[in-house]
């Protein structure tokens, strides 16, 4: 019997330089080196990436969705953080 399965890794791809890495999916690998290789073989078969990040899934820290209200909603009424909150004279064009 197998003693231990290969752990799960999350894969992030930069599709071309200048862009952020974006989550592409996940895969199994025995270690980080293999995870990178597997990511290359699985997720960039069609030229989808120029750079790859992998991280073991268990190392990702995520917020608790049941606390989203207190986590995110307080930001929703802070409209003074957005440019449209401030009135500008109509005559001015480039501001």
């Amino acid at each position, binding site marked *: 019997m197998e003693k231990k399965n*290969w752990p799960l890794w999350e894969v992030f791809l930069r599709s071309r330089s200048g862009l952020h890495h974006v989550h592409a999916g996940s*895969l*199994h*690998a*025995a270690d980080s*080196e*293999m995870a990178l*290789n*597997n990511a290359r*073989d*699985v997720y960039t*078969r069609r030229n989808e990436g120029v750079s790859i990040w992998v991280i073991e899934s268990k190392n990702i820290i995520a917020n608790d969705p049941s606390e989203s209200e207190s986590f995110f909603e307080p930001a929703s009424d802070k409209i003074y953080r957005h440019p449209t909150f401030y009135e500008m004279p109509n005559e001015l064009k480039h501001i």
Partner: protein
Amino acid sequence: MLKQKISAYSILLGDQSLILGQRLGELCGHGPILEVDIAMTNIALDLLGQARLYYQLAAELSDTYEDEDQIAFLRREKDYNNCVLVEMPNGDFGDTIVRQYLFDVYHLMFLNQLKESNEKRLKAIAEKSIKEVRYHLNFSGDWILRLGKGTEVSNQKIQKAVDTLWPYTKELVQSSELETEMHGFGIAPNLADLEDEYYRQVKSKFAEAEIKLPEDKWSQIQGKKGLHSEHFGYLLSDLQYLQRSYPNSKW
């Protein structure tokens, strides 16, 4: 004529890639884990792609062959000039990896030389293929270590594979008549020049992977002259089945 000889040489190179690609193709869907299945198919696709380039060039130069498919599918057994190593059966994953590794080390060294060829089209194929093969070697070399140093079982299995396949390496670094002639024209590398470096690399990897080196024994393996193993006929029956059963058809 030189043109016909370059064509024949390009076929020999295509044969190595085609036959190894064909073997790896057998494994698609049967790998030890999905990720590895996908990785090995990538290698197979690279190799088949290379075979096409060599065959297309060969067909262009040839007075005998019209296209890549006639070369790939319609020659007689002894007209295939691949080394015997690449036609050896997949066996277990250890056999597959050792075969791959032994070929990859040679293949990368070879292409690094071929890219200095004065035959521009072969040079171009070499330049394209090097990038692919560097990755193949990275993959197979990594697995040599994993299997060699992994568990007792994996070490035994890979040791057995090395013992079996070792005699087939000699042929890789011995030029056939055609290859020697091509070297004379500055088209092909002199394979004997690769020998020391080849064994140095392989031996050092095996030492790291805790794989014992088999004794060098007498062997007479001459796939490049068209003398193949018993396995080869079966491989060709699959490869050629449709082209032979339905002659003159377009697919």
